[in-house]
């Protein structure tokens, strides 16, 4: 009588199936099990990537299926890399990334440090703080548009209350100088809790005994923070920066809802440009080249960053 699950399964397998299976090597069996996953990955990730690379060397337009497709060599890449508007968009994206990452890391870490202190209502505050990241970006974009309304918006009213200025005197999403900050504020409001949660996990992973030893050595709180807390949380912080960096590089929905990339091109991120080229202008070949350039950039930067992260973790 078979006793284990495996033995029972083997006993239940019909002989005509069991016999050829028994003759398979472990490696062959492993391939059979992972084949569906590999097939899916090839179909969903690798094939589109190869297809996109191929399209990037052509003048193909998806809205002209009957038109002749011509091989244009590196022309699409040349046009993109020599277009000042593309570089301006890259610059906007870089500014957005730096501003949001700095703010989210600083505020997220500070919040995590505060939440890590034991106080009454600790859990309630944690729940309240993480609420924004549970909302849909489209919803967040929509209601912040109302909050930023010069005449009826709460944001303008609040600023006016503290500064005494006219609430209708400035438009967060309509002015060149303010629009990038309008997006940074919303993204920070929404995603700082995510950074906070990762930092909190890092803070709670530090053994209490290290602090007790430092106390015995009469280390000040600041010294404990600089020599224990910060180095031990650093890998977590770097991980949060990696996640948020990748997410914000492809930021689309929030910006479209808030400013649509305007005023002018002040908040036009690369993802918006790419979408317009691919699905509004229908320059599929050109957009493919653009996507490949972005892919290489993100992949390169991420690889360097992950190496740095591994070094920090190994210390």
């Amino acid at each position, binding site marked *: 009588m078979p006793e284990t699950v495996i033995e029972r399964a083997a006993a239940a397998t019909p002989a005509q199936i069991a016999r050829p299976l028994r003759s398979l090597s472990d490696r062959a069996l492993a391939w059979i099990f992972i084949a569906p996953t590999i097939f899916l990955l090839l179909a969903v990730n690798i094939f589109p990537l190869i297809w996109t690379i191929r399209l990037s060397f052509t*003048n193909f337009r*998806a*809205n*002209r*299926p*009957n038109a002749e497709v011509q091989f244009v060599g590196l022309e699409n890449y040349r046009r993109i890399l020599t277009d000042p508007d593309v570089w301006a968009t890259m610059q906007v994206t870089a500014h957005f990334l730096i501003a949001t990452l700095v703010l989210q890391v600083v505020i997220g870490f500070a919040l995590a440090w505060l939440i890590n202190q034991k106080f009454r209502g600790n859990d309630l505050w944690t729940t309240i703080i993480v609420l924004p990241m549970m909302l849909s970006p489209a919803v967040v974009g929509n209601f912040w548009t109302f909050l*930023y*309304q*010069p*005449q009826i918006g709460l944001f303008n009213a609040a600023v006016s209350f503290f500064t005494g200025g006219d609430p*209708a*005197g*400035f*438009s967060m*999403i*309509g*002015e*060149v100088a303010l629009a990038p900050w309008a997006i940074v504020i919303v993204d920070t409001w929404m995603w700082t809790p995510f950074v906070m949660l990762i930092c909190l996990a890092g803070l709670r992973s530090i053994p209490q005994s290290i602090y007790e030893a430092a106390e015995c050595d009469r280390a000040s709180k600041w010294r404990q923070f600089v020599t224990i807390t910060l180095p031990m949380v650093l890998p977590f912080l770097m991980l949060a920066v990696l996640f948020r960096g990748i997410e914000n590089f492809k930021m689309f929905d929030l910006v*479209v809802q808030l*400013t*649509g*990339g*305007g*005023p*002018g*091109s*002040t908040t036009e991120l690369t993802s918006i440009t790419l979408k*317009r080229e691919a*699905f*509004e*202008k*229908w*320059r599929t070949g050109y957009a493919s080249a653009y996507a490949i350039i972005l892919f290489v950039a993100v992949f390169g930067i991420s690889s360097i960053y992950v190496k740095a992260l591994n070094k920090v973790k190994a210390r």
Partner: protein
Amino acid sequence: MKSRTRNYLAASASAATAASILAASSAQSAELTLCWAAWDPANALVELSKDFEAQSGHKMSFEFVPWPNFADRMLNELNSAGQLCDLMIGDSQWIGGSAESGHYVKLNDFFAAQGIDMADFIPATVTGYAEWPKGTPNYWALPAFGDVVGWTYRKDWFSRPDLQAEFQAKHGRALDAPKTLEELKQVAEFFQGREIDGKTVYGASIYTERGSEGITMGVTNALYNYGFQYGNPANPYELEGFVNSADAVAGLEFYKSLYDCCTPPGSSDWYMSENIDAYKSGQVAMQMNFAFIWPGVHADPNVGGDRSGYFPNPAGPNGHFAQLGGQGISVVSYSDNQEAALEYIKWFAQPAVQQRWWEMGGYSALRAVVEDPSFATSQPYAQTFLDSMAIVKDFWAEPAYASLLLAMQDRVHNYVVAGNGTAKEALDGLVQDWIEVFKDEGKL
């Protein structure tokens, strides 16, 4: 002669086929899907189409998409040869691309077989909504909804004696619906920041939207009237000196000055619905908008009735034009229900149905309706609609219209709203962008 005979035979055969298809199909009921934008006229069409359902036995369903996503959604559908829509009320600028890519069924033979004559429709709507190439008798749609940019104003504010007197003293003329763009700006400046009934109000809401087509549909109302042209009339793709002429630069500068002086704060990305909201909530004295909103304004409990008036886009120093809106109705070539769809178009083209369409809030393009002596007085905005339709001009309807449009959106928004560079630089840049598009298209 031989060729003429062959053409005649071919036309007769097509007509006979179309007639037999219609006759045969009337016996079978189909489920037709009509695709259009989600707006007030679409709701009127749903009501109107109930008559068609009752008469034909076909069932109608509708796919309406809000304007900002309409082009994206529907052009994706057409480009992917989707079968969602049997009938498409597509934007006028899609006609070139849809004709050349084979998305729409050519309707010449059908029109001939059914006795539908394009001469019975307002000429501008035939050119704008149905023809490709423009100016040739190749029809891909039936004019379905005439539309044009015009203006709505607060007649009740304009008629206040104190404001009348103040305006008269300042400008030496009565405070009335403006006839020229300069007058429009004066009126807008007059109302900007004024307290009316304890509320701060503003001059005018104008189109400034960046993402789809908004600011282009707005700025052209100034550009055309200052002398902007899409190209050399004798050489269509010669842009230099026409798109960026000194007159065109002045027109763009005017639009920016209107945005800077006289619009509500925060109106940096406004299109149809935002302008309606601003007007109906009593924020602005005037609003630029397509004529489709006028029935809704007239019926509004706060600003409707005698409280609002309507006027065509004012003239500029070098012309008097207004941006054409509106759409034609086409049969989608990927539809399995083409016969029933053609039956719908035949029904829709009938004068009685077009008359009812107007009465329900749809702007008929049938001359028998709009040229009827009672038309001009049938609604307070009817005369303004007629006057506006007489001065229309449309954007490019080239297959590459989307690239041309987005380039203009970027250049104009960058100058008017963001204040980057000069009007000359914006239009010079636009010329370069458009030349690049036409080169890509093999037209230059």
